[in-house]
C-alpha cells in the first residue's frame, strides 16, 4: 500500500472501536494512575493488511538464513565460548518475550484510548513471534552445535537455576502489580526503549564476531518490531504525564524500573559481551562503551531528558550511578566472576580467560588485572578436576557474596551492600536503590499516598535457602544438571569435552555443604550482624580487603 493509503486505512480502522452501551468489559487489573480520555494517536499506523505480509517477509529472511547457516556449516566457525553463554540467554529470553504479550491486556482497561489498544494488540502478537522464533533458534543450536547439553534441558534449567531466576524477574515485572508500572513503565518505557539496544543490537553484533550470524539474524528481526512497542510506551507515557497526580508515581516507577533493568540486564548482557567473546581487537567497543552510546546518550540524553519539561522526574542520580557501577565499580566484571565462581550450579560451560583476554581487559578497563587477573588465573588452574574442589570451595581469596533480595544478583559491589529488616526478615540488598524498591516502592502506601494496586515482591528469593545444608552433588542432581551418563555435569569450568577432563557428581560429593547466606544472616545476633555488615562494606573487588590486589 502507498503511504497515503496506509494513512487512510489507519484512519478507517479507528471506526471499529465503540463505547459500551450495555455492559462494561471486565476489569481484571488495577492501577493507581489516573487517565483522562485523550485523543492520543497511534504513532505507527499499523494495519494488519500490511502487517502480516511484512512479518511473513521478515520470516522468509530469517528462516532462509537459518537454512543457509546449516548448509554452510556455520558451526564449524562458531566460538564455543560464545555459544555456551547462549544456553543461559536463550533459556531466559523467550519468557520475557511472551510475558510482554501477556502484559498488553493490562493496558486495555487502564489506558482509555482505543487507538492505542490497536497498537497494543499488534505488540501482543509481535511478542508471540519473538518468543517462538527465539525458541526455534535455541532448537537449531541444540540440533547443530557440538554440545547440546544445557540447550536440551533449557526450560527446566531456567526455572530452577539462580541465574535463570535473576532473568525471570525481567519477565514477571511486566505482568503483575500496578498495570501501568508493569506493562508501561517497566516494560515499554525502560526495558524496551532503553535496554533492548544492548540486548538485541549490541549483543548480536558480538555474536557475529564469534562466528554466529544466526543470533543477529533473529534478534535484528526482533528488534525491528521494537520501534512499534517503544511508540506504544511513549504514547501512554505522554497520557500519564498530562495528569499531574501521576507525576509522583511516574517518578517512583522510573526509579524502580531503571535500577532493576540496570541490575539485571547489565549483569547478564555485560557478561555475555565481555566474557563470552573471543574477539579481542582493541578497537572493538567494550560493553561500557556500548552502554555509554546506546543507553546513556541515545536513551537517557535523547529520549528521557527532553521529557523533563513535561514534568517527568528523571532519576539522574541512579542513571549516573549505573554508569559509575559499570565504569568505576566493576559491576560487569564482578558479575562475570561470580557466575564463574558458581559454575557448578549452572548449565553451561564457562571458558577460562587467557593472556589475550587479560590484555584486552587491561586495555579497556585500566586496572582490571590487579582486581581480577589473579582470580582468573586460579580459575584456569582449577578448571580440570585434579584432586581439588571447584573454585568456589577453594581458597582463592574470594568471599562468597550475599544475594540481593530485590534484584537477586549478589551484592557484589561490597561497599554498597545494605542490610534491613523487612517483613520480619533480615535481608541484604546490593544497593540502597534495591532496598528502597522492596521496603518502600512495592508497598500499598508510598510517601503517604495510598497505592493499593502496587505489586509485591514474593517467592523464595534467595536460591541458596532451598539448598541450605545440602551436599553439592545432591543440589546439582536435584536441579537435573547432569548429562546422559548419569554423572557428568552439564556445567564445566572449561571447554574441553574429553570425558576424562569433565567434572562429575563424584567430584562434588566430597565438597562441603552449601550454606545459605540469608539463613546464616538471620541466625546472627544484632552485634554479629553489625560486624558482618561493617566487614562486608569494607571489602573491595571479589570480597578482598579494599585496596588489595588479586
Amino acid at each position, binding site marked *: 500500500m502507498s503511504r497515503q493509503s496506509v494513512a487512510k486505512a489507519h484512519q478507517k480502522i479507528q471506526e471499529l472501536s465503540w463505547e459500551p452501551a450495555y455492559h462494561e468489559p*471486565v476489569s481484571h487489573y488495577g492501577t493507581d494512575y489516573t487517565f483522562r480520555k485523550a485523543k492520543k494517536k497511534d504513532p505507527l499506523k499499523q*494495519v*494488519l493488511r500490511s502487517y502480516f505480509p511484512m512479518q511473513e517477509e521478515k520470516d522468509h529472511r530469517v528462516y532462509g538464513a537459518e537454512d543457509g547457516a546449516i548448509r554452510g556449516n556455520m558451526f564449524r566457525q562458531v566460538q564455543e565460548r560464545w555459544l555456551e553463554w547462549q544456553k543461559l540467554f536463550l533459556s531466559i529470553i523467550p519468557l520475557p518475550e511472551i510475558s510482554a504479550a*501477556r502484559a498488553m491486556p493490562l493496558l486495555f482497561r487502564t489506558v482509555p484510548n482505543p487507538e492505542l489498544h490497536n497498537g497494543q494488540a499488534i505488540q*501482543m502478537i509481535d511478542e508471540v513471534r519473538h*518468543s517462538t522464533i527465539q525458541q526455534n533458534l535455541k532448537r537449531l543450536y541444540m540440533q547443530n552445535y557440538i554440545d*547440546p547439553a544445557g540447550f536440551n534441558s533449557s526450560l527446566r534449567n531456567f526455572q530452577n537455576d539462580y541465574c535463570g531466576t535473576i532473568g525471570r524477574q525481567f519477565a514477571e515485572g511486566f505482568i503483575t502489580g500496578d498495570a501501568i508500572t508493569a506493562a508501561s513503565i517497566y516494560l515499554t518505557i525502560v526495558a524496551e526503549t532503553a535496554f533492548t539496544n544492548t540486548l538485541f543490537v549490541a549483543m548480536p553484533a558480538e555474536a557475529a564476531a564469534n562466528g554466529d550470524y544466526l543470533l543477529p539474524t533473529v534478534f535484528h528481526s526482533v528488534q525491528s518490531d521494537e520501534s512499534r512497542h517503544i511508540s506504544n510506551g511513549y504514547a501512554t507515557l505522554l497520557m500519564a504525564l498530562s495528569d499531574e497526580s501521576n507525576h509522583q508515581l511516574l517518578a517512583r516507577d522510573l526509579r524502580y524500573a531503571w535500577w532493576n533493568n540496570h541490575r539485571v540486564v547489565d549483569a547478564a548482557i555485560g557478561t555475555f559481551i565481555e566474557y563470552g567473546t573471543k574477539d579481542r581487537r582493541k578497537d572493538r567497543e567494550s560493553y561500557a562503551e556500548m552502554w555509554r552510546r546506546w543507553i546513556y546518550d541515545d536513551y537517557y540524553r535523547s529520549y528521557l531528558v527532553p521529557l523533563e519539561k513535561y514534568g517527568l522526574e528523571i532519576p539522574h542520580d541512579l542513571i549516573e550511578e549505573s554508569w559509575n557501577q559499570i565504569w568505576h565499580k566493576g559491576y560487569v566484571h564482578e558479575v562475570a566472576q561470580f557466575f564463574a565462581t558458581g559454575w557448578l550450579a549452572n548449565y553451561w560451560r564457562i571458558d577460562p580467560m587467557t593472556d589475550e583476554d587479560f590484555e584486552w581487559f587491561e586495555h579497556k578497563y585500566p586496572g582490571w588485572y590487579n582486581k581480577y587477573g589473579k582470580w582468573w588465573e586460579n580459575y584456569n588452574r582449577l578448571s580440570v578436576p585434579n584432586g581439588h574442589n571447584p573454585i568456589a570451595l577453594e581458597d582463592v581469596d574470594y568471599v562468597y557474596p550475599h544475594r540481593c533480595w530485590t534484584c537477586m544478583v549478589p551484592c557484589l559491589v561490597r561497599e554498597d551492600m545494605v542490610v534491613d529488616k523487612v517483613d520480619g526478615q533480615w535481608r541484604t540488598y546490593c544497593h540502597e536503590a534495591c532496598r528502597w524498591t522492596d521496603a518502600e516502592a512495592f508497598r500499598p502506601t508510598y510517601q503517604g499516598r495510598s497505592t493499593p494496586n502496587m505489586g509485591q515482591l514474593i517467592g523464595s528469593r534467595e536460591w541458596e535457602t*532451598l539448598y541450605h545444608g545440602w551436599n553439592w552433588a545432591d543440589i546439582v542432581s*536435584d536441579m537435573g544438571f547432569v548429562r546422559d551418563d548419569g554423572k557428568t555435569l552439564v556445567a564445566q569450568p572449561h571447554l574441553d569435552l574429553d570425558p576424562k577432563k569433565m567434572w562429575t557428581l563424584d567430584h562434588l560429593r566430597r565438597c562441603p555443604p552449601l550454606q545459605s547466606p540469608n539463613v546464616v544472616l538471620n541466625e546472627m545476633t544484632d552485634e554479629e550482624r553489625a560486624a558482618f555488615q561493617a566487614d562486608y562494606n569494607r571489602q573491595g573487588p571479589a570480597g578482598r580487603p579494599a585496596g588489595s590486589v588479586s
Partner: protein
Amino acid sequence: MTTTQERSVPKPVFTDAEAGAREFPDSNARKFNYFVSAKRKQSHYEDVTVEVQPDPRHYLAQGWLYGFSDGKGGYPLEWTVLKAWGTDRPEPVRGPGSGGQGYEWPAHGWHEFRDPNEEWELTLYRYNANVVRQLNQNIEAAKRAKAFEQWSSNWVQFVAQHIGAWMHVNHGLGLYLFANANRRAPTNMHNNAISVNSMHKIRSAQDLALYNLTLSEEIDGFDGTAHVEAWNSDPVWQGVREVAEQLTGIDDWCEAIFAANIVFEPLIGELFRSNLVQQAAPGNGDFVTPTLIGAEEYDYAERDLRYTKPMFQLLIDDREFAEHNRRHLEQWLAAWVPRCLNAARTLQPLWSLPDAKPPRFEDALDRSKNRFSGILSDMDLRVPKELDQ
C-alpha cells in the same frame, strides 16, 4: 604507491564446533528433555511452545517472584472455576533445605493441552498473510471487473449498514475478550492459541473496515459511516451488541472462550456469515463479499473452533474433575444459549432486506442450532433445553 590499511574486522576461526564432531556424555541428546510429547515424536510446535510459561508446581523452584497487590503471582489456576487433574494439590512449600523439586511433570492436567493448529509465529504469519493477500487480490479483481456496478442500491445499503456492522463484533471480541484472555490461562499452549484467535478476529474486523473503505471509493453513494450508525442505534443490531458486550465482561477466562467459540459463534456468527451473507450475496450479484466472509468463516470453523474443542474436551474428560467441569459448562450453556438465541432473533429483519432473498430465517436458525448441537455432541455435552425456545 598507495598502501591499504588493513581493516579491523573479526577473523573467521575454524572451531569444529558442529554436531557430531566428538563423542561425550550428552553429545547425541538433541531433543528437549523437559516435557512429554503428546504423540510419539516431539513436534516442532511443542518444541517452541511447551514450558515457556513456567509453573511452580513442577520446575519453578523459587516460585513466582512478583505478585499483584493481593500477593498472587504468575497465572493463578483459580482464574477459572474449571479444573484439570492436580489443580487442587498445593504448590510445593519452599524453605531452608527444602530443595527445589516439584511434582513430576506435568504436575497437572492443564499442561496436556496442545493446539491442533500447532500455531506459532511461522504458521500464524503464513496463514494470515495468505488471507490478506488473497482478499486484496479478490477486491482488486472485482474493481477491474467493475463488479460493484452490478449491485442494486438495496444491496449496496445492506453491505454498508449490516455487513459493515459485523466488523464491530469482531473488533470488540478480538481485543477485549480474546486478547484479554491471553493473560489468563495457565499454560503457554493455551495463551498462544488464544492470542492467535484474537488476531483472527481483529484481522477480520479490519478486513471488513478496509473493504468498506474501498467500497466508499468505488461506489457512488456508498455511505462509509452507515455501519457505525447501524451498530450504535439500529434495533436489529442491539441484541448482538448487548451479548457481545456481555461476553467481554466475563471474568472467568474459560467461560469467555467457551461462551464465544462454542455458543456465540455457531448461533450468531455462523448464522450471520454462512446462513445470511453467503446465501444472499450471490443472488444479489455480489461475488466479492463472500470471499471476505468466507475467510472469516474458515478462521472460525477450521482454526478457532478446532483448538477450542480439544481445549475443553480435556476438561470434560478429566480424570479427576470431569463432573465438576461438565456441571459448570452446562451452567454456562444454560446462561449463554438463551442470550445468544435472543440476540440471533433480533437479527431476523435482515433476512427480508435484500432484493434476492436468502433462505428463510427460521431455516437458517435451525441450521445454526443443528451445527451448535453437533459441536456439543462432538464434545459429549448435553444440548441445553434452552435451545428449544
